[in-house]
């Protein structure tokens, strides 16, 4: 899909998602208005996972097939992942403040997991900007990105082990515990966030590629 089309589709989806989340979905009986942040918080978190997963997949393609563009694509996906992850931390924090009266709760394991991932992927940028560009850097970044996706389940397990569990569980083994209207809103919000990711990913990638070809041209002229 072309970038303008993609941007238009995700803008429309985002608009629809906001409208549904605020006007269509029923107000939660216990939590009231604050529950509506769920429609943004959880899709943001899922999208962040999708970004990290996509970044790791591209990293694997780089190491395995030597795909020439995969390093940049992996970097851009992880960059977007850190942005979505930060937004997850932010919205989760707001939710914790309203629901439990604290900005940060160590007993909410999704929040803690995102903190660990945030620290891990921030170090990815430190690694990337500390090593000179080239195939060696591409390999190291790819290896680090692969460690990241393995770290996600391991950390999740570690966090579950380390504390008692009071995070509201919406997705259990019995399927989503939501009404139809809530579930529809949630799905639209998730699609909107994924669309936003796809747009931002394509945009940043196009910019970075333009940058690279401009640099090549400059070198040719010099």
């Amino acid at each position: 899909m072309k970038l303008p089309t993609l941007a238009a589709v995700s803008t429309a989806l985002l608009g629809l998602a906001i409208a549904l989340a605020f006007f269509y979905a029923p107000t939660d009986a216990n939590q009231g208005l604050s529950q509506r942040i769920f429609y943004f918080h959880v899709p943001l978190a899922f999208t962040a996972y999708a970004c990290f997963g996509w970044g790791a997949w591209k990293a694997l393609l780089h190491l395995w097939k030597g795909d020439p563009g995969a390093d940049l694509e992996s970097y851009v996906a992880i960059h977007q992942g850190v942005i979505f992850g930060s937004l997850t931390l932010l919205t989760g924090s707001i939710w914790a403040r309203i629901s439990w009266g604290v900005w940060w709760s160590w007993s909410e394991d999704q929040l803690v997991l995102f903190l660990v991932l945030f620290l891990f992927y921030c170090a990815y940028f430190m690694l990337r900007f500390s090593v000179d560009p080239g195939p060696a850097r591409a390999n190291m970044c790819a290896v680090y990105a692969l460690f990241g996706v393995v770290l996600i389940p391991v950390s999740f397990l570690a966090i579950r082990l380390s504390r008692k569990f009071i995070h509201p569980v919406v997705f259990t083994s019995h399927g989503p515990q939501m009404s139809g209207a809530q579930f529809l809103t949630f799905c639209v919000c998730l699609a909107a966030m994924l669309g936003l990711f796809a747009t931002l990913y394509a945009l940043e990638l196009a910019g970075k590629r333009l940058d690279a070809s401009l640099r090549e041209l400059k070198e040719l002229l010099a």
Partner: protein
Amino acid sequence: MSYAGDVAALARKDLLLELRAKETLPSMLLFVVSALAIFHFALPRGAGHGAASGLLWVSLVFTALLGLTRAFVAEREQGMFDALVLAPCDRSAIWLGKSIAVFVFLVCAEVVALPAFGAFFSAVDGRTVAAVALADVGICTVGTLFGAMAVAGRARELLLPLLFLPMAIPIVVGGVGGYLWFLALYDVLFTVLAWAAFEYVVAEA
């Protein structure tokens, strides 16, 4: 030479270097004892065994970091990396040899640290010793891989803690909680990954 022979030769080289230069191990020993002494003053009176055992894990992870930071310095500074990569052996043997050497250093430091902890705070039980041994494997294998990455960067000593500490969080959770199966799982998972990945980290172009 066989794979095991290569690994043994490489590990022997690092241990011999350390035996002659005595650069890493004395500083690790001094560090871990000073850290424990500092933690004694950082803890409030009567803080109990739980708080102290948490600090044991903190000091072990930081001591390991100290050793890992030094692990590849000689290779980079004296251009030994190129020679090692050129050597007719599997590249993962370089990683395994180095991991074994770091493991030996860390165990030496712990042979002092655990009794010191017992003397300063409270006695160490067998479960903690087993957890420390299992954690060491994960720390050394993952740390050696990340150490090889960190020395390639400009920040070097600064970079390794940033790369490694998020990876160490599950180790600390498993160690403090005494979840031996979890530490074993961590070891298996990340050792295999590091073993497979090392080749790409040292390959130039």
